[in-house]
């Protein structure tokens, strides 16, 4: 056991902005830090461990620590793409258990919207040292087209349909209508999704997440400190992280790292998918939700399309209330990295602080998970299972 139920999420804050041309990335990180600490009833002076990923200025933890003048004894700049913050929660728990820090701060922020980055249909900035870059520069695997490959293969192997994928968006939109901060609040129908333009074969516009500025932060601490604070007790029960490699080209594009990170998290928590009352599953694209539902064991391989089309993701009617904030598909996808907002909504559900129309009754066990970077070329994946004490 690395987690051993000894780390508590005592502060959680999602920045209300979705468009921040008036704020620097550093200021957004700082506002998220202050928001999460205020939620916990702690201050910057209490923080002795700091965790951030490549969205932080300089892609390291030093510059934000300096900006906030943190007096640290533990730093972690692990970047695993959009799931980094779930990884950070697990790393914070391990650091706390090992005595390396008492109060861990994790921040995420970015502003792709005001910087005009429409990353779905354009290539990401090239890293010339990445060995695969000379090929990618030529082949132009935009993110939407890569997920198009994934969707079309899933359709080919399992008969998954665009209508089934659309149900993922429909479910998210029904939740987002209750979130005043959501980027897209209008409920959509399957017909609306199917009528939206094809970005790349297999992916329509409504299959894609939003592009938003903003961020979020969480504060993690040890049991004694958590019990001294005036917040509901939410602790980490199990965690798993991995990288799902390209495997030398011997691939199955319908499987994700959720298969491994999920199994690790369930084993550590000692629970099964059937025990989970609420799930935050990173929804960069609708197909990715289906694949993760299958890989985590919520639905047998090839059946998640049917699972979603039966309304199972919709809070109040389905078997697995999911992304009740509206998720990345409708609510928020700050810095093009969805892991933090997944974690925050899971904490809200466990505290009983989700929107009343969507709050899961007796929500005492929740899962949050997501991929990092892009399916098909060596993606990260992390899963965490949280429980209310």
């Amino acid at each position, binding site marked *: 056991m690395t987690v051993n139920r000894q780390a508590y999420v005592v502060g959680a804050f999602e920045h209300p902005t979705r468009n921040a041309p008036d704020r620097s990335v550093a200021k957004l990180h700082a506002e998220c830090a202050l928001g999460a600490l205020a939620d916990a009833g702690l201050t910057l002076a209490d923080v002795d461990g700091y965790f951030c990923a490549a969205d932080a200025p300089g892609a390291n933890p030093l510059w934000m620590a300096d900006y906030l003048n943190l007096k640290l004894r533990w730093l972690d700049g692990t970047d695993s793409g959009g799931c980094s913050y779930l990884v950070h929660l697990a790393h914070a728990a391990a650091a706390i258990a090992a005595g390396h820090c008492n109060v861990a701060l994790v921040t995420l922020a970015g502003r792709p919207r005001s910087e005009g980055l429409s990353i779905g*249909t354009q290539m990401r900035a090239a890293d*010339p*040292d990445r*060995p*695969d870059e*000379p*090929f*990618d*520069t*030529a*082949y*132009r*695997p*935009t993110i*939407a*087209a*890569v997920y*198009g*490959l*994934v*969707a*079309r*293969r899933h359709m*080919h192997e399992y008969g998954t349909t665009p209508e089934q994928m659309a149900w993922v968006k429909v479910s998210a939109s029904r939740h987002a209508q209750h979130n005043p901060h959501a980027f897209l609040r209008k409920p959509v129908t399957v017909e609306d999704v199917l009528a939206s*333009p*094809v*970005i*790349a*074969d*297999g*992916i329509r516009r409504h299959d894609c997440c939003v592009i938003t500025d903003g961020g979020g932060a969480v504060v993690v601490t040890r049991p004694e400190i958590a019990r001294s604070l005036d917040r509901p007790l939410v602790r980490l029960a199990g965690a798993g992280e991995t990288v799902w*490699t*390209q*495997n*030398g*080209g*011997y*691939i199955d*594009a319908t499987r994700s790292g959720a298969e491994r990170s999920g199994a690790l998290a369930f084993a550590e928590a000692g629970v099964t998918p059937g025990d989970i009352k609420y799930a935050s599953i990173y929804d960069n694209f609708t197909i990715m939700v289906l694949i993760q539902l299958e890989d985590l064991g919520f639905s047998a391989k090839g059946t998640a399309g049917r699972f979603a089309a039966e309304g199972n993701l919709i809070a109040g009617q389905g078997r697995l209330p999911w992304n009740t904030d509206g998720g990345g598909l409708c609510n928020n996808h700050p810095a093009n990295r969805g892991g933090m907002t997944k974690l925050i909504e899971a904490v809200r559900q466990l505290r009983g602080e989700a929107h009343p129309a969507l709050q899961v009754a007796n929500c005492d066990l929740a899962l949050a998970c997501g991929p990092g970077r892009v399916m*098909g*070329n060596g993606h990260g994946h992390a899963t965490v299972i949280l429980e209310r004490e």
Partner: protein
Amino acid sequence: MPDATSAAIDALAARHPEMRPFWEAAAEGRFVLATCTACGRPHWYPRSVCPLCGSTDIDWRAASGRGSIYSVSVARRADPPYALAYVTLAEGPTMMTNIVDCDLDALAIGQPVRVIFRPGPTGLPIPMFTPDRGADG
């Protein structure tokens, strides 16, 4: 080899020296696969350490250039649209690539394809694929 081609190879090889043989072969229109002499298996993308067994005994071997479409997605918002694809090579590995010289609306999973070199952004020929009308089945 034209000077411009040599210069483009030198530029790529300056950063990725171990890839020089791949680009030199590509410049001659030959598609070679990094193949491990320890486990005998080819892999993609080319690595200097075999991703399947960890050996550093890697040989560049001529590929058949034949394969089939594992998945394909036409980027419809691009101008002009183009086909991103995974192609499973006859030798085993699946590689991300483009399908060119084709009817974008007629591409299908399972369709036989064969390698065809096209100039990449640096001017160097890069392996892409085109429907293999001569293939059996």
